């Protein structure tokens, strides 16, 4: 355990960094294993344990190993990268460990079968940055995720961590820092897209005897896990950004300032790593009193969410930190004037804070060279759903949806047809094929009835039903609504009832008009943005997939074969071999037939659970 002493000056930080680098031999083989939650779920921890166990037996050269944060290519996990050659092995199992050590580490040979194969060229690719998934990305915020052990602050420092803080404390004044953030064009990464520099300025100018800096790590959008990876994989980048913000907004500590990170309860690893990071930073004097020897005090506490999506909303988040139910309140006065405990508060998403040290270190010109006119820098997206390369991607803003989905994403799974991509979570909408060449940034997607939101991109194919998706989001929001105001609580419920009628084949065309009127009231009159944006998924799917709605209502059919009430399961005679696998799993005894002879489904008994469809190896079960 390296002993930690409080750093009392920027020179001491620099000396520490130099000594860490000096004591590391980059030529020694280093095995890095991704231990992000995604890879862990696939057994990465066992893989790392196997490596540590077997390395002990190797007495040849020195070998080191390191756990790292999420690389983003979750589809291919567990991921192992061998340094210094940067050999990228994917889908590594514990049984592969021995061979990797003997072949790659000791004999410098490649284990071919563990390399990534480009599906287009059938070529095997050696290094991470050559893989198409990564090649088209611009990893800036995520650059160090695969290189550092999130539990080891020295890794972060070795790569330049906390040098931005050092520059800010000793070279820049608070107003200068805010100017830099404003000029950079940084906009909030949590979905709101508010200009970060302006927010910091309001917070700095607001009157109060105490101020708060809060990082929103509540990432509630289903399908989005960018913040999880960032908090798990590079927690110090968030801390550094927060400390810089605190210094600026408190006017170099003139006003006492305190920090909070609000992390979703469902992210236990992120909580753990943030907690550790804060402890380590305190030990080094990077948090607490007299940071880096400068007369500036700031510390950060972690509050875990309680399982409420609405707590991602600023005033609900504050209520939760205050120990109350997460109910939003009227925001006619901004949080920068009266936020947490009615004091001036700066709330930014964790990804926004992580951009700050990067801007300080690389400069405004460099940052502005990335992105579009009004959306500067990179954005991290989660590319999920019916896509080949599921995972997290970081790209310059302005990349088109087509490049994201078909370039980086590798296109649709199983060669199915693309139907739509849902962006912006429950506040966003579905974008159809006709708009795939739209650039992705804060403003372009709103023009077509969606939004970039926090970065979730859910790809859907011909087997997904748009009416079902609209209903899914309404159900989600009905569950998550705080219930305080009438339009959201009663309005979303009644909108969902109409969608229930449609998917069950009980709706009339007039209900679509009622749906649109309800939607406009919910948008206009809800107390907070959860309610106000709730109608977006419904409205956008009606806009682009109205035919599908009409088919459900008039023909009482679900073209995609999803809505249970509107489909029937059949067994096709000429494909059924009579193996009986379906009979075994049918919970209602609805399948009859003799052994080795085609079976039949009794429609009256069938509860449409779909188990027979799952188990049939001969594609004999079809949905109509």
């Amino acid at each position, binding site marked *: 355990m390296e002993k930690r002493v409080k750093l009392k000056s920027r020179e001491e930080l620099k000396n520490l960094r130099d000594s860490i680098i000096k004591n590391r031999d980059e030529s020694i083989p280093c095995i890095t294993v991704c231990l992000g939650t995604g890879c862990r779920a696939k057994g990465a921890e066992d893989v790392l344990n196997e490596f540590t166990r077997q390395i002990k037996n190797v007495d040849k050269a020195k070998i080191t190993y390191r756990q790292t944060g999420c690389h983003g290519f979750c589809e291919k996990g567990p991921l192992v990268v061998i340094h210094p050659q940067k050999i990228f092995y994917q889908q590594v199992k514990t049984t592969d460990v021995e061979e990797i050590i003997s072949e790659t580490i000791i004999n410098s040979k490649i284990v071919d079968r563990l390399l990534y194969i480009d599906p287009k060229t059938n070529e095997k690719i050696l290094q991470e940055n050559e893989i198409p998934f990564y090649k088209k990305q611009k990893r800036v915020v995520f650059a160090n995720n695969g290189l550092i052990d999130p539990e080891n602050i020295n890794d972060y420092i070795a790569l330049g961590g906390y040098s931005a803080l050092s520059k800010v404390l000793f070279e820049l004044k608070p107003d200068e820092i805010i100017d830099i953030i404003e000029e950079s064009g940084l906009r909030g990464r949590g979905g709101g897209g508010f200009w970060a520099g302006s927010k910091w300025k309001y917070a700095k100018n607001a009157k109060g005897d105490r101020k708060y800096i809060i990082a929103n790590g509540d990432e509630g959008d289903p399908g989005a896990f960018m913040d999880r990876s960032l908090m798990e994989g590079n927690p110090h980048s968030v801390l550094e950004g927060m400390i810089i913000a605190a210094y600026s907004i408190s006017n170099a500590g003139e006003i006492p300032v305190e920090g909070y990170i609000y992390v979703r309860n469902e992210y236990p690893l992120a909580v753990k790593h943030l907690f550790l990071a804060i402890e380590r930073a305190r030990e080094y004097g990077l948090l607490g009193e007299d940071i880096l020897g400068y007369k500036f005090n700031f510390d950060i506490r972690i509050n875990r969410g309680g399982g409420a999506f609405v707590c991602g909303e600023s005033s609900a988040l504050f209520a939760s930190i205050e120990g109350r*139910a997460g109910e939003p309140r009227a925001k006619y006065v901004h949080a920068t004037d009266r936020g947490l405990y009615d004091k001036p508060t700066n709330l930014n998403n964790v990804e926004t804070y992580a951009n700050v040290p990067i801007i300080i270190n690389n400069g405004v010109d460099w940052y502005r060279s990335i992105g579009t006119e009004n959306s500067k820098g990179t954005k991290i997206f989660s590319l999920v*759903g019916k896509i080949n390369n599921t995972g997290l991607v970081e790209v310059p803003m302005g990349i088109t949806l087509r490049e994201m989905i078909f370039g980086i994403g590798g296109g649709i799974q199983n060669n199915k047809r693309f139907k739509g991509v849902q962006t912006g979570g429950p506040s966003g909408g579905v974008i159809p094929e006709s708009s795939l060449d739209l650039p992705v940034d804060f403003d372009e997607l709103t023009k077509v009835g969606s939004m970039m939101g926090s970065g979730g991109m859910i790809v859907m194919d011909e087997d997904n039903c748009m009416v079902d*998706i609209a209903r899914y989001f309404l159900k989600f929001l009905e569950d998550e609504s705080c219930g305080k105001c009438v339009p959201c609580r009663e309005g979303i419920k009644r909108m969902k009832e109409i969608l229930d009628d449609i998917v069950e084949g009980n709706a009339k065309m007039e209900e679509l008009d009622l749906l649109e009127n309800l939607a406009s009231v919910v948008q206009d009159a809800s107390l907070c943005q959860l309610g106000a944006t709730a109608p977006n998924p419904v409205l956008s799917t009606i806009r682009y997939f109205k035919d599908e709605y009409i088919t459900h209502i008039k023909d009482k059919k679900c073209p995609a074969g999803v809505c249970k009430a509107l489909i029937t399961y059949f067994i096709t005679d000429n494909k059924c071999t009579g193996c009986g696998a379906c009979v075994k799993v049918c919970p209602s005894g609805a399948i009859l037939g003799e052994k080795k002879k085609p079976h039949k489904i009794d429609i009256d008994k069938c509860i449409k659970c779909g188990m027979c469809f799952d188990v049939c190896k001969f594609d004999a079960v079809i949905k109509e």
Partner: protein
Amino acid sequence: MVEIDKIIEKYSKDKSSLILILQDIQGEYNYLPKEILLTLSQKLNVPFPQVYHVSTFYKAFSLKPKGKNIIKCCLGTACHLKGGPRIVEGLERELKIKSGETTDDLKFTLETVNCVGTCALAPVMIVQDKYYDKVTPVKAIKILKDYGETSEVKVKRRTKKS
């Protein structure tokens, strides 16, 4: 109530610590016992209805004891698209409870979660912090049987020793 005093001591004694304390209590007892909520109300000087509101508002809290094995089925968008709801239905049928409920023998609690952030593994099911990826209704029931049998065997071993 020695336990609860230890928990309260970790935090500042004002009402802002209410949720943090409740999270620790939920972790310790597997639910929020009514008596403890009453005590908290007195010790933190928070009106009892407010403590009750917080206890019922957040999904992380439960007023009833949870089962030995908590099954969390993810119903995030990616998991929904890949058949998540049918997995929940399958488990509801198998366990004879609705999601949010616990089996009578307290062996299983079935819950749904709105995204655990492992969308590449969709559809995801978590049992006692162990993640299962690309689950189907058939696989889900098989996984359950492992837990069912394992816990029975453990009980048998314990009673043999005593």
